[in-house]
Structure formats: structure tokens, C-alpha cells
């Protein structure tokens, strides 16, 4: 078991900066996800922790020991690869046994361990097969088994579920979570899928363009996104971001969308919004998650919008609406009457609004 500390880690590819000054602490036994779109530097960061790539600048510590110059073998980390990285010429048994074998573990011990892990992952019947003879799901589990069998201090999982079909992905998600719960090893999990990060992690580190955007628990990330990027990356469908004018009124701070009053904030929340807006031509970005609108008849006060698409999702419907300048998505109960081309009024939940600076994109306030 180990903690991991990244101290201003930088990765340069020629002149391109792949990872820009990442500092992060992963506590012993934590499950931390690196989340971000492809090319955001999350995989590079993990590979630097694994020792597969050189660290251009900064330091990485495992248990307070600087590991910059240690080869992968010296770091006692185990890794599962996106494409599984199985040894194609070896049987599944040998694949799983390999890390023990190179450590010259006694044969009996190897056998015992491999079988134990294989049973845990329900692949004990397939051990004499070659990777090419088994399905993606099995390969994925073999890859995990190979990482698990070593009892490493740190687990690195690089998008291990991305090539599985939906059913398997959702069940493996649960299995992985349970596995972590059982063995408690420090785990770093790289993914571009916000759902995976949200459902599994203790902490999420959201990354974009090589930079760390926010670190926090899933709930923090979801409810108090640090900036526009985090806000729109987390949650599906994505948060609506709308431009609003800010004005100070006696009742509080009034936000106007499309020249119609949208919401009035109390003084405490409004102050920060007001200050930011003053520096930015009186404009602010309002974030509203699609479930946080209520669809009402057009005569009700709220954001006026015309339904563009109505998509049936089972329990709910997803409405895509035009407000004139912007497009808004709303998740509504399936009995909502609005049909395509209908005019409706959208009423936001006042306690779930987010405000971002137009220029910097940083969160200014959250109305909860």
C-alpha cells in the first residue's frame, strides 16, 4: 500500500507540452480517476507514474520515495492496459503468472496465486487458452488478473473498460469497484468516460489540455464544478451554458436571459456574480443541468423556447430547444406534453445554478 505524490510534473514531447505542471496527492488506498477527453495528458501522467515514460520536469514520489529514475520494475506498480497488452504467444495462465515468474517466485506459490486470482475473476476454466482465443471481456479480466496477482502497492488502470460492450462495461464497473473495496490498494484509473469516474472513484482529477482542472470527490465535481470545462464534461447530457446579463436590483441580483428576467439571486450569491460581471461588460455565463429545468406552458414566466427535437428515453424525454440565440437541452418526465415546434417556458431550479466568468471560464458562484 502506498501513497503517490506528483510534484509539478511536466511532460514535453519535443516542443509540445503533453502534461503541464501537475501536482496531486493520492492517499494510501484511494481510488482516484484521471478524467478527461483524449489527448488531455491523463494517460501520459499515468505512464510517467508507471515509469514507461520519462518525466521531463518535476518529481513523482511513491511513499515519499522519489521514483523519477527508477525503471518500471523498481516501482512495484501494476498496470492494466487499454488494449490489455496481453502476451499473445503465452497461455492465459502464463500471462497471469508472468510477473511472478520474472520475480522468481517458487512454482507452487505461482500456481496457488494464479488460481486464486483466476477464480476471483471467474476465468479459471480458460487458463490454458491463448489470448486470441477468448473474448474481449476475458482478455480484460486476464489483464486485471495479471495486475492483481503481484499484490502491488499501486494499481494503474488505463481505460481498461473502453473496448467492452455496454453490458459488460457496466457489470465490470461494479466488479472493479468491489475489487478495490476488497483489497484496498491505491488505484489510479484513467478514463474519458465521466460515468465510470463518477461511479467508481473516491476522488476525480479532471484534466484538459495537459492541465489539472479540478480534484475532488464525485459529488464535489458534480455539484460545484470549478470551471466551465468541468461543468460541461461531467454529467450527461451536458450542462447548458447560457449567457446572461447581470443587473443589481433592490431584491437582489437579477440575471436576464434573452431580455427576459431569468432569476434573481440573493445578495450573498449575487455579490460574486455581480463583481465578475462588472469587469466583463455585465455578462455572466449561467450553467443549468438539463434535469434542472422544469417545462411549463409558455405563459409561465421563465426562459421562452421552442422545442426542436423531442427524444424518447424511456423514463424521461430529452428535449432540445431553441431560445433564439442558444440551444438548450432539458430532461423532463416522459409525460411532458411538449412536442416538436411547441413553444414552452423553461423554469430553472434556483438552488442548482452555476455561474462562470465569460473570460476565464472559472466558476464564480454556485447557487446551492
Amino acid at each position, binding site marked *: 500500500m502506498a501513497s503517490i505524490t506528483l510534484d509539478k510534473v511536466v511532460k514535453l514531447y519535443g516542443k509540445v507540452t503533453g502534461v503541464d505542471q501537475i501536482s496531486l496527492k493520492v492517499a494510501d488506498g484511494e481510488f482516484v480517476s484521471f478524467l478527461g477527453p483524449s489527448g488531455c495528458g491523463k494517460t501520459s501522467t499515468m505512464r510517467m507514474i*508507471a*515509469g*514507461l515514460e520519462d518525466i521531463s520536469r518535476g518529481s513523482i514520489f511513491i511513499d515519499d520515495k522519489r521514483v523519477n529514475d527508477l*525503471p*518500471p*520494475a523498481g516501482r512495484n*506498480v*501494476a*498496470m492494466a*492496459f*487499454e*488494449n*490489455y*497488452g*496481453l*502476451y*499473445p*504467444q*503465452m*497461455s492465459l*495462465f*502464463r500471462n497471469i*503468472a*508472468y*510477473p511472478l*515468474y*520474472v*520475480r522468481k517466485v517458487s*512454482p*507452487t506459490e*505461482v*500456481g*496457488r496465486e*494464479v*488460481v*486464486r486470482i483466476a*477464480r*476471483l475473476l471467474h476465468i*479459471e476454466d480458460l*487458463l*490454458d487458452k491463448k489470448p486470441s482465443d477468448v473474448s474481449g471481456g476475458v482478455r480484460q479480466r486476464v489483464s486485471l488478473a*495479471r495486475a492483481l496477482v*503481484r499484490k502491488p502497492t499501486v494499481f*494503474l488502470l488505463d481505460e481498461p473498460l473502453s473496448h467492452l460492450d455496454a453490458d459488460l462495461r457496466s457489470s465490470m464497473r461494479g466488479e472493479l469497484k468491489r475489487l478495490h473495496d476488497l483489497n484496498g490498494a491505491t488505484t489510479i484509473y484513467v478514463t474519458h468516460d465521466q460515468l465510470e469516474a463518477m461511479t467508481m472513484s473516491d476522488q476525480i482529477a479532471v484534466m484538459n489540455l495537459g492541465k489539472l482542472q479540478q480534484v475532488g470527490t464525485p459529488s464535489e465535481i458534480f455539484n460545484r464544478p470549478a470551471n466551465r470545462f468541468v461543468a460541461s464534461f461531467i454529467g450527461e447530457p451536458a450542462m447548458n451554458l447560457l449567457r446572461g446579463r447581470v443587473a443589481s436590483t433592490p431584491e437582489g441580483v437579477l440575471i436576464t436571459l434573452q431580455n427576459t428576467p431569468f432569476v434573481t439571486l440573493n445578495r450573498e450569491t449575487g455579490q460574486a456574480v455581480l463583481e465578475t460581471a462588472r469587469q466583463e461588460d455585465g455578462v455572466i455565463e449561467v450553467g443549468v443541468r438539463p434535469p434542472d429545468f422544469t417545462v411549463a406552458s409558455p405563459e409561465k414566466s421563465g426562459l421562452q423556447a421552442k422545442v426542436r427535437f423531442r427524444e424518447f428515453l424511456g423514463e424521461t424525454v430529452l428535449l432540445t430547444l431553441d431560445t433564439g440565440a442558444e440551444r438548450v437541452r432539458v430532461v423532463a418526465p416522459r409525460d411532458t406534453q411538449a412536442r416538436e415546434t411547441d413553444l414552452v417556458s423553461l423554469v430553472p431550479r434556483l438552488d442548482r445554478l452555476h455561474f462562470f466568468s465569460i473570460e476565464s471560464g472559472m466558476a464564480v458562484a454556485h447557487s446551492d
Partner: protein
Amino acid sequence: MKHLLIAPPLLFFFAISVIPLLFTLGLSVTNTSIGGSGSFIGLNNYAQLFSDQFFLRGFLNTILYVVLGVTAQYWLGLGLALLVNSMVHGKRLIRLLILLPMMIPPLIVGFVWQTLLDSRYGPVAGLFTGLHLKPVPWLTDPTLGFVSIVIVDTWQWTPFMFLLLFTGLRTLPKEPFEAARVDGASSWRIFWDHTFPMLLPASIAAILLRSIESFKLFDIVFFITGGGPGGATNTLTLLGYFTSLRSGNLGYGAAMSIILLLTVVVLATLILIVVRRLMARADKAGQQALDQFLAEPLPVKVA
């Protein structure tokens, strides 16, 4: 449509391969010589071959050339491919340089090496003298002459091996190798456990191709030693050429050619089998310890 696609090579096969083969087969059972008509003499030519010490020597030489030359070329080519593959910069230039020997017509190769190895005015001898060693009679000692040919052949054709193996290396997936590094395997282990076995198909193809080409070894020997001293460096192709075309003994030469062909076919098959076995064993040797678990009943119960 599909028949049309494959017609030309098949046509070539029948027109320019089968007919000459039959022709040569026919010649080999006669005593035809240039300057005289031949008559049917059955398998006499073949019988004679096996008491002909030049032929036997040439036969042995040919096989040794193939075995020694191809082995040397394989390991050197593999080493070079690994080295170049691990480079980040300058790959293209290095590759061009490595391929250079392959581009030189054997005739010129023959001349260059003949002078290089000359014990009197060759730079190799100069090097030996410079190191206070006795110059070695590279071309005039039967054994060394043989070794020299292997060296030159290796010089010229290692690039070919390199080319095939390098291409093979580049098509390997990279994740298993990273996995092995994380799993804690040393470079040496990674090579034996992964690179080598995964390169197996490319290796077999390369070895087979080179072996087949090696059997045709002719020009280098022709230009460097002419088969000497005393026939110590003769190859079957060289002998066939001299017998058929220089001394005009077409029937006998044809019989030699046929034996050569048979040898190639048999040895190519054998090499295929042996190489596969050897490589499978090399793969296994490193893994034997693990293999026995599969045979053993799985010993432990899991809670």
C-alpha cells in the same frame, strides 16, 4: 475475373519453370555434351555423382554455407533490427547505410573483398600487421577460404535479413512490451520471452527466404576464389556451371542441378521444421517452469 488475376504467374510457372525442369531432368539421364549428341545412360550420372569427390565436397560446402551463413545473418540481422528499432533519431540514414552492401553487384563485391583480404596489399592484412599479428591467408587456406566466403556472403546479405526483421519488429504491438516492463522483466527476459517468440513468423519467413537464396550462392564464390583452393569453396551452382557450361558436360551438369534442386527442396522443408522446433523450444525453455503447472492439478482451494 479471379482466374485472370492469377493466370500470369501460373503461366510463368508452366512455361518457364516446368518445361526447363523437365528438359534438365531429361538431360540428366543422358551423356549429352556440348559438341556431341548424347545417348540415354539411365541413372549413371547420378551414380557417378556419389563417387565424385568434387561434387561431394561442393554438396557439403553448399549445405554448410547455408547453415553457417544464414545463422550468422539471422542473428546479426536481428541484432541490427533491434538496435535500429530502439533508436529515436537518424533511423532513415542508418537504415540506408545498413542496406548499402545489398545494392552492390556481387561481381564488384567479389573484387572488393578479394583485394580487402589479400595478405599482401589488402587493408585487413595491414590491420593484422599493425596489430603485430601474422596476416592470415584468408583466401588460400581451404578452411579460411570457406570462412571468407561465409563472411562476404554475410556482409552482403545481412541487410536483407535486417530489412525483413525490421519490418517484422515494426508490426509488433507495443503494449505487451510495456506490460512486461511494468511486470518487472529485464531487457534480456523481454527479448527471450516476448520479442523473439512474437517475431517468430517473420523470422521463419526470413530464414527460409535467405536459405533458398543461399543455395544459389554462385557469383561471390565465382569472383573471389573460383571455388579454390582445390575445390574447397565450391558450391553446387558453381560446379554445375563449370561442368555444364565450361567443360560442356551437359548431362552430368544437369544431374548435379537436379540433385541441387532436390537438396534445396528437402533442406528448405527441413529448415522450416527445424527452425520451428528450435524456436518453439527456445520459447519453451524460458517458460518450462511455468509449463509444469498446467500439467499439475490446480492445487489450492480458494476461499
